[in-house]
């Protein structure tokens, strides 16, 4: 786009951001390949326990960990490292930024080794009693702590900016990034406790058994806000860049701030809606989390209206008339504002992701879809919709601006989000319809229910898994186009000076921030809300009368320690 403010970037910061963008995109090649294998396994095209040296659950773990955790965490840190200094007009302190990147890279390599060696087929939720190699957990912890350090590195910048700009509103882009990492920091404390206190000692053999419901509760304390850690950088782009890309203005700056604060408040105390069938948690605690989950839908609904108003404003300036003409008068295929195509395609996908999430959150209705393929059908409409497309688009934008290169294969770049949109809608329709017919998630259907030679053969699901596979192949084609654009651009010659530049929008209503000016009171409110929501759950889990469990691997019904001779094998005396 023309007319953007360019700020020079020192070479260290340039290298840092480029490494944090390129490395996860390289890993994403593996993650996407693993995703393609998933639809082929599930459709019965591959009727085996493994393919190409990758076992089914190993591939599923790689797909989830790389796509949903590694790629997203690296991206959020890179985006913050680029956007926070840009929006504040300051230089990024590099020493701790490199420490952060080093820890994240080391952690990723450890976890990747454990997965690729077949020693951590525990899926991205790493629920015990499935047990992984200790390096998987240590690697995950390093990735998380590295991302914390990146956040801590921005706080002195923010404080200095506040001192130097008394009475001014914090730039909305900084509010968005800080909301992202506040949610991340609070949420990851729980998973850090799970990993450090429960799982690492257990996987090292220092403890024999683990409290499964406690571990699962700690995971979902983290797991649902993780969704907002994914969504918040996308929301930051929607509020601060999309209106300008569409030729308009953000309808209300204050509403943007309100949405970010509401997400800090409500995105964490909602974890039990992933555990509605967990017997140890009381119904009253689950119901409270159900209500709070509806509360967290509110900022997304506010966002739907505000972004629509912002897009309408831009379209009316270009002559749109009537109630809905503004929808078609958007720059969907603009070569100049190509980033728009990634953001708008993600928003269209999110329309379906939003309602399917509300259905999941509805306490009794959840039973209809729980643990079926509906669930991954739903979350591909969120994390593989607005999140993935916003991250892919911004990764390209950062690659171009921080390397001083021109975007190559621009037509392909604009086609990618729409091809993905078609693919993900087909994919999710198949998954969700199949789920309503009882199709399970996380199952190698080609080995069982979709294998005509199997006694479990279930032909009713054939249509759904076939549609899912077609969608998955289209999604893979979209990603092949994306990788071609990304790596052709990355390997091309530099054509200009590298500089930070973001298409930040003006606000139509630029109201004072008022009570939303400071994070502190909202942070306190968030902690109180978390205490109210989680105290009954912690009590339930600690009072439960269930047994703790030894570790297992997905392909063996015997505990790991028993296989290694570390656990006493019960013997039966002959009569």
């Amino acid at each position, binding site marked *: 786009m023309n007319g953007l403010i360019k700020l020079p970037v020192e070479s260290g910061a340039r290298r840092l951001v480029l490494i944090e963008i390129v490395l996860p995109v390289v890993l994403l090649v593996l993650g996407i390949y693993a995703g393609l294998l998933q639809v082929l396994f599930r459709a019965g095209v591959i009727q085996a326990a493994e393919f190409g040296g990758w076992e089914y659950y190993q591939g599923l773990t790689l797909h989830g960990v790389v796509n949903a955790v590694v790629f997203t965490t690296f991206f959020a840190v890179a985006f913050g490292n680029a956007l926070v200094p840009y929006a504040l007009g300051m230089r990024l302190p590099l020493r701790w930024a490199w420490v952060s990147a080093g820890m994240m890279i080391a952690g990723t390599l450890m976890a990747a080794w454990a997965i690729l060696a077949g020693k951590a087929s525990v899926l991205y939720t790493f629920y015990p009693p499935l047990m992984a190699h200790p390096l998987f957990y240590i690697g995950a912890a390093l990735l998380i702590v590295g991302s914390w350090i990146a956040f801590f590195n921005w706080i002195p910048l923010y404080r200095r900016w506040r001192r130097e700009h008394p009475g001014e509103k914090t730039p909305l882009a900084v509010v968005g990034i800080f909301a992202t990492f506040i949610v991340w920091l609070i949420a990851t404390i729980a998973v850090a406790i799970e990993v450090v206190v429960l799982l690492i000692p257990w996987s090292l053999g220092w403890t024999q058994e683990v409290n499964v419901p406690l571990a699962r509760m700690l995971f979902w304390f983290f797991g649902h806000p993780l969704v907002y850690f994914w969504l918040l950088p996308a929301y930051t782009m929607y509020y601060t860049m999309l209106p300008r890309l569409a030729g308009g203005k953000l*309808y209300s700056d204050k509403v943007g701030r309100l949405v970010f604060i509401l997400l800090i408040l409500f995105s964490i105390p909602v974890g039990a809606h992933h555990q509605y069938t967990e017997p140890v948690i009381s119904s009253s605690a689950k119901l409270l989390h159900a209500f709070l989950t509806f509360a967290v839908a509110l900022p997304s609904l506010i966002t739907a209206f505000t972004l*629509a108003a912002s897009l*309408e404003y831009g379209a*009316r300036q270009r002559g749109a008339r009537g109630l809905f003409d503004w929808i078609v008068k958007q720059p969907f295929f603009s070569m100049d504002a190509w980033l728009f195509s990634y953001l708008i395609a993600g928003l269209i996908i999110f329309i379906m992701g*939003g309602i399917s999430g509300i*259905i999941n959150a509805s306490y009794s209705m959840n039973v*209809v879809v729980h643990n079926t393929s509906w669930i991954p059908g739903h979350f591909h409409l969120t994390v593989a919709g607005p999140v993935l497309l916003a991250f892919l688009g911004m990764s390209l934008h950062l690659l171009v601006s921080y390397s001083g290169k021109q975007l190559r294969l621009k037509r392909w770049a604009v086609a990618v989000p729409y091809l993905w949109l078609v693919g993900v809608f087909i994919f999710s329709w198949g998954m969700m319809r199949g789920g309503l017919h009882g199709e399970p998630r996380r199952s190698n259907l080609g080995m069982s229910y979709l294998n005509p030679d199997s006694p479990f053969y279930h032909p009713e699901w054939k249509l759904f898994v076939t549609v899912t596979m077609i969608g998955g192949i289209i999604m893979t084609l979209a990603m092949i186009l994306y990788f071609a654009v990304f790596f052709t651009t990355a390997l091309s010659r530099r054509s200009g000076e590298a500089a930070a530049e973001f298409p930040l929008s003006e606000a139509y209503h630029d109201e004072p921030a008022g009570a939303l000016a400071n994070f502190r009171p909202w942070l306190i409110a968030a902690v109180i809300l978390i205490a109210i929501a989680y105290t009954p759950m912690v009590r339930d889990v600690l009072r439960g009368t269930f047994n703790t469990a030894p570790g297992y691997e997905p392909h063996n019904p015997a505990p790991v320690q028993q296989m290694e001779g570390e656990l006493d094998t019960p013997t039966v005396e002959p009569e």
Partner: protein
Amino acid sequence: MSNQVLEERFVPKGAIAFFAALVVFYAMLWFTMYAELLGRR
């Protein structure tokens, strides 16, 4: 309508209509699922 007039008078009628349609669409899907739930009793 000139841009200056739009700047002063912009009321997002289209966004209001879109939002209303979105809520109706969401309600339809939610109640469809509710019917599915009731059908399984």
